[in-house]
């Protein structure tokens, strides 16, 4: 992805950061500005309020960054300012050898979350970029220690599975109790009841289910009474399907991910069986949700412009207390990359593998298949009935009113889907040649569309 103003704007955590960065884009503030084109690195030293300048570095290839300032915003204003100046005019950035602190950061970044680094070697002086990039071989371990470690891991896995079985049984009983005692009471007291069962599920190591139950009241609260009951039944019913399916096949990675926790990124990269799809992708929308547990989930939806699954979603979680984290993408951006999909019956969640710089030619969207735009959703329900919603590609259509509700209607008038996110009046007046949205079985949340006014963003 080229480092342009749109990319920098998208990276900024908020408007205030961009404004603050703008104030730092003056050469006098930066005693040092340098780059290594071969290493895709740009760094600088910014004179802050302290005695020492802040050291700031970013990678022009993937826009990762680091700054020594104490800001809790990511990226901070220094990173944004440095990117901004570089995007505007790279000529004042002198070509230079990568300094130690940059190599150090690079080394830590490349080894984070993987195998432990050799601390003795790493603390040595004379570090270089080449050294930082060298993969450190595993330490040789004592076979007895390794056997004990494996035995302990197996025991932990068994204990976890037992805890999960107990937790899911507890959850099923809890759902039965809600039906027996009446959903009217549940809807009246759902916050406390969901909080209580979610806490028990956390104790039972079923974090994913716990998060889902914890979020249920927030999902139901904005709805009217009729929709609230419908959605509560739908959500509880889906949880029943999920828990029943998992209890029958506890080793299924897709089901386990929905009940407990996800696989690590590293395990996905190392697993040769995962689906890898190299294609051109378009960033179609982003959903950022702050959860009750203090975490923020950031979902970036991608439309496949080539062969393979029609869509992918990149899911990230981070602490809400850190402020809004940067998005590595600009809405509508197209890029070529290999995605590694989490194993699933209908592969959707993925992580970004190798990414290539995108060409300037825009690739047109694929056409919506079949006569019924909901067919892919229904197929997904047949394969994985525990799924609650999925992305769909819609054919030509338009916005319509029905009372106070807004609907998407296909151009031939054959299909109509109720829309969650009301577009501004001038957007509602556009003719849509193709749209992408998330369908939950009842309502459509539109992400982006191609229209007679070009590509428009409907949710970002």
């Amino acid at each position, binding site marked *: 992805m080229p480092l342009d*103003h*749109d990319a920098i*704007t998208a990276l900024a955590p908020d*408007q205030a950061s*961009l404004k603050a960065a*703008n104030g730092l*884009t*003056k*050469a*006098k*503030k930066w005693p040092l500005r340098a780059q290594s084109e071969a290493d895709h690195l740009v760094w600088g030293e910014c004179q802050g309020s302290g005695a020492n300048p802040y050291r700031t570095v970013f990678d022009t290839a993937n826009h990762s960054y680091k700054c020594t300032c104490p800001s809790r915003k990511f990226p901070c204003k220094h990173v944004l*300012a440095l990117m*901004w*100046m570089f*995007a*505007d*005019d790279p000529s004042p950035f002198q070509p230079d050898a990568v300094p130690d602190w940059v190599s150090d950061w690079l080394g830590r970044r490349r080894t984070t979350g993987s195998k432990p680094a050799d601390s003795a070697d790493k603390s040595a002086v004379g570090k270089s970029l080449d050294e930082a990039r060298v993969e450190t071989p595993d330490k040789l371990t004592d076979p007895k220690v390794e056997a004990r470690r494996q035995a302990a891991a197996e025991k932990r896995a068994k204990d976890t599975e037992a805890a999960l079985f107990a937790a899911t049984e507890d959850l*099923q009983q809890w*759902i*039965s109790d809600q*039906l*027996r005692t*009446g*959903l*009217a*009471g549940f809807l009246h007291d759902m916050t406390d009841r969901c909080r209580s069962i979610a806490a028990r599920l956390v104790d039972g190591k079923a974090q994913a289910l716990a998060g889902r139950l914890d979020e249920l009241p927030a999902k139901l609260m904005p709805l009217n009474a009729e929709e609230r*009951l*419908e959605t509560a*039944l*739908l*959500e*509880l*019913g*889906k949880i*029943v*399907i999920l828990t*029943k399916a998992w209890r029958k096949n506890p080793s299924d990675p897709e089901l386990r991910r929905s009940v407990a926790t996800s696989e690590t990124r590293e395990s996905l990269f190392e697993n040769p069986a995962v689906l890898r799809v190299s294609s051109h992708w378009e960033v179609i929308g982003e959903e950022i949700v702050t959860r009750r547990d203090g975490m923020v989930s950031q979902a970036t939806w991608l439309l496949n412009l080539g062969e393979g699954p029609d869509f992918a979603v990149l899911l990230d979680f981070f602490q809400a207390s850190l402020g809004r984290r940067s998005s590595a993408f600009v809405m509508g951006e197209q890029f070529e990359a290999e995605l590694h999909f989490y194993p699933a019956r209908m592969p959707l969640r993925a992580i970004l593998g190798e990414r290539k710089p995108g060409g300037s030619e825009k690739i047109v969207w694929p056409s919506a298949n079949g006569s019924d735009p909901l067919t892919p959703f229904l197929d997904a*329900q047949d394969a994985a*009935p525990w799924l609650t919603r999925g992305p769909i590609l819609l054919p030509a259509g*338009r*916005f*319509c*009113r*029905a*009372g106070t*509700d807004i*609907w998407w*209607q296909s151009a031939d008038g054959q299909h*109509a889907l109720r829309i969650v996110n009301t577009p501004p009046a*001038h*957007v509602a*007046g*556009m003719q849509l040649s193709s749209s992408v949205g998330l369908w*939950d*079985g*009842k309502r459509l949340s539109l992400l982006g569309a191609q229209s007679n*006014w*070009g590509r*428009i*963003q409907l949710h970002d």
Partner: protein
Amino acid sequence: MTELSQSLEKIKSRWMVGGSAAEQAPPELRVCLGGADDPELALLAITAQAGIVAFRSAPSAELTPYAALPELPLPTLPEQHRSIFRRIFALQKISNEQSNLLLHFLASRGYVTHPADFMPSRFDDLPACYGPWNGWDEREAVVSNLELSEEAWDHFLPGERVNALFDMRRQDAGKARSLIEAKAEQLPAEQRLRVIQCLGQNLSQGDIPFLEKLVGSDRSQKVQALATAFLARLGRNLDEAENAQELADFHQAGKKGLINRKTIVSARKLKTAAQRARRSELYEIVSLPGLAAALQMDPDALIASWQFGEDVMDASFCGLVARTGSDGQLSACVDRVLSEKSAAADTLPPLLERLSAEDRKRHLPKILAKEEHGFDTALSCMHGYLGTIGTADLEKAPFLTELLAAIRAQADDEKKTGQTALIQEALFQLGLMADPVAAQASINTFLTAGMSRADAALLILQLNAALTPGDPS
């Protein structure tokens, strides 16, 4: 399907109040549930799944498509320039007036904004090309091809009528007057005033009967005052002798020069605020011919004799000429302001409003060379042809030197932020006025002076430099 739907409703109702709902399930489902570990949970799973795969919600009322957003007569900003346009709004506090000017600038280059980047909410002061977006979703007919007439009057929005009437006055002043005469009476006072202002375009003797009728019978004092001012421009004697004499008494006529004894008229120094307030009030109601007559002078002679040098009085006098002077008197007054060193440029805007774009364009180099503390007058002079000043004219502007000094001072000392607002405002105005070559030259000059290329204040100049007139490539 209806049977299943009814059964599901009964099941939900049962769960709502509590208890087992298995008995409410259709017989074929009950058979399946018999083999389940927990029939109630199995029924819940089936109910949930049926809700999203077996049924689709239908609209509660007939679907009404939204009216299509009309295309505008100009193309939208080219894709590659939209990002910088969006950043202008994202990084700067843009007032309504500035956003209007920006849209006027785009229109003068042959473009309109993309609705997804910026959708105007008010259209009164926007270029006429935005007319189709004004109330587009509430109107059935698009008036772009409709000609304003008595029959079509109600199909036009107030702003569109004014634009159409101005055009009609240029083509056929009598026809426009007849239309205004027929329809203005039905309008509320504010709209009536705007419609009657159109008579200022190509004002002629033929308008006198209608104007006299307005002075005698219109319900709005503002409309009466406007009609009176128009009559004064046409040289009609008004019943204002008493007020004119009172205003004249606030002035004094004298002689200046040793050899060529030239008559000069200047304002007396007044002692009290009440006197000054009364004089200001009189300037709003007395006409130029009336004041001249009270001073026993010809209006042309009064303009030639006015002693410039006192900004407040000069502004009042120029306002008087702009309101009630004939076209020739107006032009003479503009020439005097531009030629008098002691006359401030900011007395010009009311006079310039009455000049044609060509006349304003002719005066622009002199205005630029005269304006020392800003570009306000030059900008108001450029209405209708923004983005056309060349480098040669710009370089003569004394304010550019002042601006450069402020930029250098700020670049030399970051703590000197007192001039930031001035710099931002001036660069915004410059960005609207310069042609692409001058805009690029200005950017280079400011960068050399120490400004950062990434400074948001340069955005409008950058957009200007990148946007080739009428070339959507």
